[in-house]
């Protein structure tokens, strides 16, 4: 009895199976390609020197050079300013774009999709690419960094804003329209009160991300602590690198903490 028992056959099993097999095969090929490539390129000789290197570097990392604190702190402050200015540019710039990309605000679907695409396009740009373009065009310095952060952050904020706007209660808008309010009045009395807390909350969240992102900009000369990180490592000044690590971790933690507290109160 038990031996000839079969569950009823699964519906459209073959199609699903073929699909799964194809996905599995593609993944296997990608993995084989990636891992074999990487393994070939890794210079395994570091294994031999590892112990010696660790012994040289790690103790010095844990012995931060406090005397350099002022220099490091100044650059971290600059990093924060870059992130702050950049996020603010993005937060303001993202408002009109958010409305453009929100389905319930733009009547023409083509025009609306265009807005969405524009924001997607902006999000695809890696920030270092933009940073390079800005450094070349406006010259090296924190200003280039701020523009970079502003332009990269606004793509994500625009998308998030659009989602917030799409989720608002349109009944209020209709009621205002029925009252004979004009477009600007509706915007300020019906829509902004509903979306502002979330807009601010997302902007703060993006600020947390931008703090991290601004540390990278220094690599291409767009200001912030990045330049010092590279120079410090190149000079094998591990005590100073230790100080930088601690400072960044502490500053990021504090900012994350404050920002998440504010965000909790906002929403």
């Amino acid at each position, binding site marked *: 009895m*038990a*031996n000839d*028992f079969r*569950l*009823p056959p*699964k*519906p459209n099993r073959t199609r699903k199976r073929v699909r799964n097999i194809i996905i599995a095969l593609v993944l296997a090929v990608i993995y084989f390609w990636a891992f074999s490539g990487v393994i070939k390129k890794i210079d395994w000789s570091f294994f031999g020197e590892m112990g010696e290197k660790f012994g040289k570097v790690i103790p010095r990392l844990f012995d931060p050079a406090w005397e350099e604190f002022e220099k490091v702190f100044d650059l971290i402050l600059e990093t924060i300013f870059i992130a702050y200015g950049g996020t603010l540019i993005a937060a303001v710039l993202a408002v009109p774009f958010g409305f453009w990309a929100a389905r319930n605000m733009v009547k023409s679907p083509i025009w609306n999709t265009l807005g969405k695409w524009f924001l997607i396009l902006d999000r695809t740009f890696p920030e270092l690419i933009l940073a390079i373009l800005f450094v070349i065009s406006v010259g090296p310095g924190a200003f280039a960094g701020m523009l970079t952060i502003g332009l990269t952050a606004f793509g994500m904020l625009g998308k998030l804003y659009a989602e917030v706007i799409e989720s608002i209660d349109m009944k209020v808008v209709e009621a205002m329209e029925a009252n004979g309010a004009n477009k600007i009045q509706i915007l300020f009395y019906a829509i902004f009160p509903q979306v502002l807390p979330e807009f601010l909350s997302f902007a703060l969240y993006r600020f947390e991300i931008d703090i991290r992102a601004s540390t990278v900009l220094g690599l291409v000369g767009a200001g912030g602590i990045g330049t010092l990180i590279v120079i410090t490592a190149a000079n094998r000044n591990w005590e100073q690198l230790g100080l930088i690590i601690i400072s960044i971790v502490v500053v990021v933690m504090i900012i994350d903490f404050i920002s998440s507290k504010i965000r909790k109160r906002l929403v």
Partner: protein
Amino acid sequence: MITFKDVSLVYPNGTQGLKDINVTINKGEFVVIVGLSGAGKSTFIRSINRMVTPTSGQLLVEDEDILKLEGKSLRKLRTKVGMIFQNYNLVNRSSVIKNTISGRLGHTGTLRSIFNLYSKEDKMKAYDNLKRVNMEEKVYSRADELSGGQQQRVSIARVLTQDPSIILADEPVASLDPPTSHQVMSYLRRVNKEDNITTIVNLHFIDMAMEYADRIIGMRDGEIVFDGPVSEVSDKTFEQIYNRPIRDEDLRGSEENETSEQE
């Protein structure tokens, strides 16, 4: 046989869930626990498979004190004691058969269960039990595609697949409409009679309790305030258990009540 000996339970926040419970439930009985919400019905039922752990007393299931069980032996107890929930608690994104066969988990090795290597007998058991609750048409449907009544029937099949000697049902019909409620209760009743499985059901509907139970236990504030066969129960008894007059909301209504099950 299930025996509570001076069982009490105090939750970490200080709420007393059970107060000195002393009761014996015999093999094959169909017991309905009634009481208002917060009376301790759920705590009572969940003590039996140790989803909650009483803080004092002895609780014997088939002559074994289950309050001391841990790890493997606790899981072994749970394979013997099946549980049905108010919200069906099926894994929504899994198929009906996968949900049903998860009743065998306690009997199956970890690796075998991860790779879906169930024996033919287990698969047959799961399928047979789906047939018993008339759900064999939907074997490969996803659980969240089913209506509430169908989901509860699948969860009965899941419990049966465990081969339990006891079934606990915690408000199994509270989320269902009257006709479906009766359907689910009839399945439970039938399983109880056919397989001689001790069945303990929490209900707050008086009429359903009267219709399906052998024996009724009334609870209030963590204590048993009534215990006796259905024949001894009258409206007065319920007013005494609930400590207030009976209201319409305490009744589920009969099977003729025309609210069709939503598909």
